[in-house]
């Protein structure tokens, strides 16, 4: 009991911390997500050093400056003479906090002309680390909203189907099965092709969310129908009904509270699934367009053999997503265990 609670607490803390970093990506990222350094396409992650070429130890970690600003191809080569210490709270490119306040302060950075590519740079010389953080804003938010959306739809349809039963149940559940059976990918391609050329990034984002949320309602609906079905047969519910409680009262007071834990577990499980769905959709060209980053956009460059075989750091975003998803699933796991031990 305690260990599950602890597990959940840890998971929540980690997720909250990560969300915080992603939410304030402008502050934590050293560069703007669209800033190109055309001298350094596909630069390997910048080496961070404590000991310089002469063997002197530095307290501040530092990076080496670029060897020659003119020769673009030599992106990995660094000048071992010029040393640039990594500084905290540096002024850099402007960004917006919560879409309102403008700030120029970044958590860390190095002076120009040196560059700090923690996760290397992409084909346009853009900082992968900054793009990963900014991309998280889109991917995680899309995952969260879509999960809430599909679970809300699920509770309405599943609740109604489970509570009223009969032909309503049949209609809704068979409809849900139809939804599960549709070839969604091709439908999505058709939808994207039918849309006008000029749709803004926000519209694409909303489209992504609504598509994922609307497609995904059937599974949670089936689950919640089962929960409602067993909940409405419980003795205290039957007793309340016997005393003349209305349907609305019963649903609100007795039935829906019993689905609470299942709902939470479902959302925690669905968020990483929908983040992955965003990755898939963007990978197929249905996501947000350049230069906006999303995790799917970051991974889609791996489609090319030359990138796949030559630049290992392009895999880093994928590697970073794995522990994040593990935490999500740990949270879902803990929630489910807790829910089992909660006396209904």
């Amino acid at each position: 009991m305690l260990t599950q609670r602890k597990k959940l607490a840890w998971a929540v803390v980690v997720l909250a911390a990560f969300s915080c970093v992603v939410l304030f990506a402008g502050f934590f990222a050293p560069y703007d997500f669209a800033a190109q350094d055309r001298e350094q396409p596909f630069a390997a992650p910048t080496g961070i050093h404590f000991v310089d070429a002469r063997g002197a130890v530095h307290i501040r970690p530092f990076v080496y400056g670029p060897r020659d600003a003119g020769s673009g191809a030599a992106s990995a080569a660094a000048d071992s003479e010029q040393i640039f210490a990594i500084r905290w709270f540096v002024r850099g490119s402007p960004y917006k906090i919560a879409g309102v306040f403008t700030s120029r302060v970044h958590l860390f950075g190095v002076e120009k002309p040196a560059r700090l590519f923690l996760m290397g740079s992409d084909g346009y010389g853009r900082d992968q680390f900054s793009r990963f953080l900014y991309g998280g804003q889109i991917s995680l938010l899309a995952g969260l909203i879509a999960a809430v959306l599909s679970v809300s739809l699920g509770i309405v349809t599943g609740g109604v189907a489970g509570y009223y039963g009969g032909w309503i149940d049949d209609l809704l559940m068979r409809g849900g099965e139809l939804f599960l059976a549709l070839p969604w990918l091709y439908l999505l391609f058709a939808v994207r092709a039918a849309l006008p050329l000029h749709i803004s990034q926000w519209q694409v984002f909303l489209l992504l969310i609504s598509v994922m949320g609307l497609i995904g309602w059937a599974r949670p609906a089936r689950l919640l129908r089962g929960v409602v079905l067993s909940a409405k047969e419980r003795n205290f519910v039957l007793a309340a009904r016997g005393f003349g409680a209305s349907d609305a009262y019963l649903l609100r007071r007795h039935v829906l509270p019993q689905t609470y834990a299942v709902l939470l577990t479902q959302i925690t499980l669905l968020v990483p699934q929908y983040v992955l769905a965003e990755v898939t959709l963007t990978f197929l060209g249905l996501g947000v367009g350049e230069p906006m980053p999303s995790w799917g956009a970051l991974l889609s460059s791996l489609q090319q053999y030359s990138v796949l075989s030559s630049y290992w750091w392009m895999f880093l975003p994928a590697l970073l997503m794995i522990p994040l998803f593990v935490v999500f699933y740990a949270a879902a796991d803990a929630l489910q265990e807790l829910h089992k031990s909660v006396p209904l």
Partner: protein
Amino acid sequence: MGRIGLSRAYLVLLVAISCACSVAHGLALQAGEERMIADGALGHAGGRLVIALRSEPKTLNPALALDEPSRDVIRCMTADLIHINRGSLKTEPSLAKSWNVSRDGRQYTLRLRHGVRFSDGEPFNADDVIFSFQVYLDEKVDSSQRDLLVVGGKPITVVKVDDYAVRFELAQPYAAAERLFDSIAILPRHLLQSGYRAGGLAQEWSLSMPPSEFAGLGPFRLKEYVAGQRVVLERNPYYWKADRAGNQLPYLNEVVFLFVPSEDAQVIRFQSGDTDVLSRFSAENFAVLQKQQGVKGYHLDDLGAGLEYNFLFFNMNDLAANAPPEIAKKQAWFQDLRFRQAVSAAIDREGIVRLVYSGRATPIWDQVTPGNKLWLDEKIAHPARSLEHARQLLQAAGFSWKSDGALIDSHGNLVDFSILTSSSNAQRTKIATIVQDDLSQLGMTVQVVPLEFRAMVDRLLNTHNYEAAVMGLVSGDADPTSEMNVWLSSGETHLWHPRQEKPATPWESEMDRLMEQQLVTLDYAKRKSLYDRVQEIVAEELPVICLVSPNILVGAANRVGNFRPAILVPYALWNIEQLYVQ
């Protein structure tokens, strides 16, 4: 007596040897056969070459083939009358051993090679030529070659002089007339005439027909087609070319075309030695292959700038009333020369070369690339990128900037537009993304919209429902006549404003005049000065903003001899009859 017996024995022996040769390696020279001697290093007979195609050929019918894989295979199976040598870019005799031009430049008399036979052994003569041109010029057949063969609005007429001479009559003098014949495959009348009479050629020579139904004058003939896997060609034992030592060509016994659907997969197959020749691949993959060049048994060639030019252009069509009003509104910017100049000045062409092509490309400012040395106008200025200059131009054109840096026009409208690219071409999408970033520094909001290629072309040429696009064109030939369709205001591929009734601007009407004039001028120096002026107009008026010309990249296994890639299509296999394996 004894000596005669001996010589007779000799004769028998010789016949036996030549028969053995005919089984093992083609047929001995027939009386009266005029073989063409090809230059190039001597090779040895035998072996096979494996090449990957991006997709299955749609047809092996030369009159119907539009896709590159079909043409690649057909090129190995057919021959033309006069050929452009890919190495020298000059014309050379092919099935026509010689030709002469009448003084007014309107009549070409071609003398055909004697004793040539199709790959099924049937003889070739003037009737086959007459038949082939009848097919290509037939509007019902709708061949892509027909456009080339209409000169001055009238189709070329073909007259048989005798069995081995043909006269072509043109409605007007035509500067590059002999280049027209290149790649126009001569068809076997004995196989195709009945099908053609019965109802056109649409049913003829699809891949599903048995190999015995095919015959051509090329170095190879069809041996086998396995749907979804490969086309196998075998050497044509009747081929009419020989090497300097008199050995009949081609050297190779077999050419195998595998269907490998993506560029990456082709690169991997080449890297692992499954295929012998690779062309049409990206600079990134060139870099990947380069790493193992010494270890694996292949070598790579960067031939420098080819004839492909990539450019950005804006929608300058007269929009129909039903067109989206926002596009019409934006055309006020697009039609302002200063706006186009500002865009051109702001684009970092060097950056495109570096980021998109890893340095294996050349920045360009007009449509003729440095690869086309005969026609390049050296006087065209190459202004360096200047955001400062771009801002001045925009200011002069009435644009201004809001406090957040966004560009607005004189009516206060935000300057935003979308750039179409083909989603199947990663390079052009990348170019558009770089242009997007460059123009954002001028305060313009640009969206990159990758579309499926045919959907994009439909918008560009038919519905005109677009704002700007990044495209590339590859000339089939170095000569400007191959570009008539692009630069004439009435042309189908006059991309920014195709099929005009009469030229919309004074500079377009000047361009029309220059293009028409160079077409009928026979003197190279005069034509060059006319075409130089066309290049100047393109660079000054910027109907298309030329950006970059990628290098031609090819690779071949070390065991392939006589490999001499060229900057004209087909880059690697143009001398396939001379390729051999060591």
